[in-house]
Each structure stands twice: as structure tokens, then as C-alpha cells.
């Protein structure tokens, strides 16, 4: 049985080059499906990564109760004072709490490719910024100085929007702001933003309060104590969230939409590719009719013939899957795009083709190949030997 099987498979693969046209239909059809599937899902993965990487379990974000997002939230100076005295916050050498009081607004900056205005987050940050967010590194130029109109731009924002190189001047609401540096921040959502001194931003947009406060805890376990202290304070009405939870909630909707769209399009395409595979395998079986009939006549079983057709379909679709996934990886992995995030502002992210996505793509390819190969394989196995021989 095994001997028969290897012999039949060997023969079918040897004759494969003669059927190159029909066979390449399977490879190319499936490559197309997998390339589209993997690229679209890579968008979802990239977006989720960008937002998920923005959090640390021991960092908290405090918003006014019921606000949902920073842009809607409003904290007063006394709120922030109260928060900075809460237990659980990490302290610097001089005993000051590691808390950054932040003010978020959105400014219009033209997009690099289209030149149309896009909403970019301008985030005023407190003096403790670099201790609260140690992952933030200014790699070109220098940090902004407080009390003057200077800002630093995230590396993602600098790539996607115009006029954000070191030394360029941005005109925002009656004042010129100088871009003094470009920063990276572990690929997180802040790389899509502009950062400046919080009080300078506040005076520029005539707001005295803050949007949020971001604090570093002594450890992830201190969260419960910190949250309780704030939520039981009758003077405060705030929501306290760990950063990863906050950013996960912000990314949920868009990731869902991307996944639904990606899967729907891929399913429809997969059905189309399956018809293509069916066609090719039927013609492969027809072309090999004489060969198969001869094999059967000299005593080969129906099962090895069936399996050999299935394996041929599987190998071709596997090849298609690998080609498709490689194309997606080659062209789109690391490709930067931007979209309107959960909070009214642009989020820059990179398409990320992960190993899991490639595996998903190849699995899809194999399923299409198996379904497309099954019926032609059954026909090959049932081929009436005498008739097939006579027809030739």
C-alpha cells in the first residue's frame, strides 16, 4: 500500500510540469487570497500592538469619572494635588510623586501624502515625564524646555505629517512652536503625538485644568490600594485604570472592524479560489485519465490514486499559501499607515505580519486546497478503468 502510494505520488508530481498552466492557477489563486487575508489582518495586529504597547501594568491613568477618553476628561489642579498624595505612587529621590499631569488637545497638521489636515494629538506633559515614561527617548535634537513654545514630535507623527522635523516651526493658534526633537517610545501610541510642557499648552489653549494624570506605581500590586484611595475620596470623581486596560478599550472597536472586514473579504475570495482549484484539479485528473486507468489496470488500489490527487492539490495550495504570505510580508510588513483612533486623533501604526498570521494564511491555503482537491480526487478514484482505456 505504501509502496503503491509513493509510486503514484511520484508519478503525479513528475507529470506536474506538463500541467503547469492549470497548476499555476491553484498556486496564484490561493496566493491572492492569502496575501489579501494576511495584509488586512496585519493591519489589525499592528493597530492592536501600537495601543497594547502603550501600557505598563504598573502605570495608571486617571480621568474624570464617566469621561471614556482623555480628550473629554477634565481634572482641576486640586484634583491632581490630591491624586499625587495617594498611596502606592512611586516617588523620586526628593520624595515627589512620579505623576505627570497631562493636557490633551488636537491640532490640525497636514498629512505627508495628501496634504489634507489631520487631527494630531498635542499632549502637554508634566515635569516628571521622563521618570513616569522611561521608555521615551529623544533620539534626534533635544527635549523641549518648559515655559517656552517648544515641542517634541513622535517618530510616527514625524513620518506621517508635514513640517515635523527638528528645527521646523509649527504655527498653532497665534503662536509659533519650534520642534526641538524627535522621540521614540517603544512603538506605542505616543509616537503618533506631539509632546510639550503642560502649562505652556494650557496657556495657549486657555485651559487651566488638565485632561488626565498618569502615574507610575511602586509595583503592579499597588494598583488596588491606589485605586481605592482615589475612588473612596468624596472630593474626587475619577476613573482609575491601568494603562493596558485603558488602551485596550480604545483599540477594541477598530481592531474588530478590521478583523471582520479582513475575514469577510478573504472568505469570499477563498470561495472563488476554491472554484479555481476544483477546475484545475478536474482538468489534471482528466489529463491523467489514461495514466490513472493504466495504474488501476495493473493492480493499483483506488485509495492511493485518491490520496495522490489530494496531495497534489495540497502541495500546490501550500505553495500558494507560502507565496501569498511572503508577498504580504515583503510588501507590507513594517508599512506605516495612520487612521483616526478611538479618541478623535490620528494614530500611526505599522502593518505587522506575525508568525501567527503567516500560519493562519497557510492553514487557509491548505483548507482551500483540500476542498478543491476532494471531488476531483473522488472522480479519479472512481474512474471506470475499461472506459478510460478505450477512450484513449
Amino acid at each position, binding site marked *: 500500500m505504501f509502496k503503491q502510494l509513493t509510486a503514484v505520488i511520484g508519478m503525479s508530481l513528475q507529470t506536474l510540469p506538463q500541467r503547469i*498552466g*492549470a497548476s*499555476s*492557477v491553484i498556486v*496564484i*489563486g490561493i*496566493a*491572492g*487570497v492569502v*496575501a*489579501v487575508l494576511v*495584509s*488586512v489582518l496585519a*493591519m489589525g495586529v499592528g493597530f492592536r500592538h501600537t495601543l497594547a504597547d502603550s501600557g505598563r501594568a504598573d502605570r495608571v491613568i486617571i480621568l*474624570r*469619572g*464617566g*469621561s*471614556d*477618553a482623555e*480628550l*473629554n476628561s*477634565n481634572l482641576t489642579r486640586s484634583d491632581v494635588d490630591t491624586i499625587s498624595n495617594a498611596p502606592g505612587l512611586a516617588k523620586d529621590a526628593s520624595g515627589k510623586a512620579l505623576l505627570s499631569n497631562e493636557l490633551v*488637545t*488636537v*491640532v*490640525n497638521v497636514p498629512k505627508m*501624502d*495628501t496634504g*489634507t*489636515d*489631520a*487631527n494630531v494629538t498635542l499632549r502637554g506633559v508634566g515635569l516628571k515625564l521622563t521618570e513616569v515614561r522611561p521608555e521615551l527617548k529623544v533620539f534626534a535634537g533635544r527635549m523641549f524646555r518648559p515655559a517656552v513654545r517648544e515641542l517634541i514630535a513622535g517618530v510616527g507623527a514625524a513620518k506621517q505629517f508635514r513640517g515635523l522635523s527638528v528645527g521646523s516651526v509649527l504655527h*498653532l*493658534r*497665534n503662536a509659533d512652536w519650534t520642534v526641538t526633537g524627535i522621540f521614540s517610545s517603544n512603538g506605542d501610541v505616543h509616537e503618533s503625538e506631539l509632546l510639550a510642557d503642560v502649562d505652556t499648552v494650557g496657556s495657549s*489653549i*486657555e485651559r487651566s485644568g488638565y485632561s488626565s494624570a498618569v502615574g507610575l506605581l511602586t509595583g503592579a500590586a499597588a494598583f488596588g490600594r491606589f485605586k481605592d484611595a482615589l475612588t473612596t475620596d468624596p472630593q474626587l*470623581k475619577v476613573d482609575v485604570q491601568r494603562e493596558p486596560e485603558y488602551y485596550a478599550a480604545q483599540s477594541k472597536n477598530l481592531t474588530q472592524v478590521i478583523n*471582520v472586514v479582513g475575514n469577510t*473579504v478573504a472568505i*469570499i*475570495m477563498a*470561495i*472563488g*479560489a476554491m*472554484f*479555481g482549484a*476544483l*477546475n*484545475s484539479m*478536474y*482538468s489534471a485528473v482528466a489529463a491523467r485519465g489514461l495514466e490513472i486507468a493504466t495504474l488501476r489496470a495493473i493492480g493499483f488500489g483506488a485509495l492511493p490514486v485518491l490520496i495522490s490527487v489530494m496531495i497534489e492539490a495540497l502541495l500546490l495550495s501550500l505553495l500558494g499559501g507560502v507565496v501569498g504570505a511572503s508577498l504580504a510580508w515583503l510588501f507590507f510588513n513594517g508599512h506605516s*499607515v*495612520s*487612521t*483616526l483612533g478611538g479618541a*478623535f486623533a*490620528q494614530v500611526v501604526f505599522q502593518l505587522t505580519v506575525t508568525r501567527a498570521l503567516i500560519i493562519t494564511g497557510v492553514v487557509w491555503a491548505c483548507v482551500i486546497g483540500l476542498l478543491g482537491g476532494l471531488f476531483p480526487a473522488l472522480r479519479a478514484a472512481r474512474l471506470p478503468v475499461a472506459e478510460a482505456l478505450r477512450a484513449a
Partner: protein
Amino acid sequence: MKYFPLIWATLWRKKTRTVFTLLSIVIAFLLFGVLETIDHAFSHPSGGVTGADKLVTTNKYSITLSLPFADAQQIRSVPGVAEATWISWFGGYYQEPKNFVFALPVDTDSYFNLHKGEFVVSDEHMQAYRNTRTGALANSALLKKFGWKIGDKIPLHSTIWTRKDDGSLDWTFDIVGSFSAKDPTQAGAQATTLLFHYELFDEGRSFGKGSVGWFEERVNDASQSAAISSRIDALFANSPNETKTQPANDFAMAFIKQLGDIGFVLRAILGAVFFTLLFLTGNTMMQSVRERIPELAVLKTLGFGDGRVLRLVLAESLLLCVIAAIIGLALSYAMLPIIKIALQGVELTPSALIPGIGVAVLLALIVGAAPALRAMRLNIVDALADKR
């Protein structure tokens, strides 16, 4: 046309093959139809405001920054401006964040004057709204969605505005009436709209008093829009709150553009689909011609000219592609209501499907070209002798 039976018969020479090829083209055009309507919807938005005679004035530097209410008088004095009104973003939801309500505080007189004839609302409801300080007019679709009835007191949560009296974010409205959009293409865009009194909003909020989110203007002559826009912006140049005035459609468009280049993604997918398909169908056509070489040779022996044979093969390809395209586009047309549910507020126009037929013809010509040429160049003697 007299050759139709012949073309039809050759098309169905191998039933399974034709059916599978047909189905994969149907699928491609189903995708084409769906993606094309979505793309069309995104590139031709019909936001909350329509008409070339509408303008929107926002803060020049950020749509989240407010403008002073007092600007309204100055805007109205600009020659060519027929009406101006002011609105703020309320950020409302009912009970849960997923129950978004597009609640807008509006100035009754100027808002309804500006949108004259765009809403269907009974005089009785309008009168009740004018007489009730805490009254709200809800879109009839919204009433249905949440099971609200006229006379209900509805609490809405604002994600932004705290109330002056108790510091809470919850605002209560009396539903005194309902309205619907006169233009049915606007029904989707307005399905979650609830209008309430600007006075109540401005007096009730704990901060931001005297400021507005944006202004809307109606101009007398749409062709003057650009000039009027720059006249409005000139009023506030060098003030602390510079403005940016643009046609309402551009404003909606700019928002959609920010979602990223949706058109590019959709076209990339369609490109992949059609490339795959071209290959697949082309291969089938080639195969089918190859099998029929003796038959084609017989046709030529009977006196069919080269050109006629070429046209016969092309017609076969055309027939296959166009039938499949019509089925595919019809299926995508049938799917429009489902997409509409998935993409709330997006208006889909079936007319976006028409270019599909053109694409089908193009596809048929590309796919059919090689086999048709082959059939045309066929040498009768060689073909009959089966020397391929």
C-alpha cells in the same frame, strides 16, 4: 446574433468547467460590487448637512477648540450669508457607551431656518418643542431603536459636559416630538440625531459658557461659497480664535479622509482579486480553445473567415464574463442592506455598481484575446491533422 446558439453551445461544452469558472467570476464581481459601493460611499459622503450652499466654520487649529458665541453676529453680517447657527459637540450616549446618541444642542430659530425644508416635523411637535425648555426632538428611528415614546423623560450621559447644579454628567430631556429627514438618502446619517435647546445646554454646563463648537452657515448663492468662506475667515484673522470655513461636504470629507486611505486598501484588494481571476479565467479559455482546435478547423473549412472565428471566441469570453458579472453585481446589490447595518450612517448608492459591467467587458477582452488570436491564426490542414 444568428451565431448565438453556436456560441452558447460551445460555452457549455464542458459543463463543470464553465460552471466553476462562472462561479469564480461571480464571486469576483460580488466583491467588486461590495467594495465599490463602500468606496463610493466614503468618497461621496453625505454627512449631517447637505447641499452646496452650506458652510461650516471651525476653529482653525483644532476642531476640539471652541469659538466664541459672539462670532455669530459678525458671521451673519457677512454679505451673502443667509443664515448662521451654532452647535456644540455633546458626546452623548444612552445608558451604555455603545448606545451612541448624536445629541446636538441647537438654537431653534436659526437652526430650523438654516435647514428649512430638510426635516419632516409636525407643527404640533414643533410647538411643543418650542414651549418646553427641557424638550428634545428625536429622530423617529432613534425613538424606535430605544423604545422611547413621546412624553418620556430620557437621561443622556455626556462624556464631556458636567452640569453646573450637581456636577454630574447626566442630562435629562423630555421627548416632546419626533422628526425625520425629508431626503431619504439622509435617513441613515440622521438616524441617531436628537436635537435640544442650546439655551438649556449653555446655562446648564459648568464650564465653557458662551462658547460654541462650530458654526454652520447657509449662503444665498452656492457659487459664491469660496469667496464667502474667505470673508468669514478674514473677520477673525489675528484674533485669538482664528477660524477655518469650508463647504459642509468638504468638512465631512476631511473627516472620512482621516480614517486613512480606505480607497487605497479597497482598490488593492480588488486588484489582487482581478489579477487572480484574470489568470484563472484566461487559463480556462485557453484550455477550452485548445480542446476545440479540430472543431474550429472544421468551421474554417466550411468557410468561416479568420475574423469571424476570432469574433466567435471573443464573444464566448464576453458572454461568460458578462453573465457572471451581472449575477455577481446583482448579489452585491442584494447585500447592500446588510452592509448598511454593518456600516452605520453610510449611504450606499446602487449606481456605483454600473462601472462593473464595463470592467466585465474589459476583463472578457483581455482574457479572450490570446485564445481568440490563436483560433484566428489556425492553419486548417495542420489543425485537422491534429498537429498542435
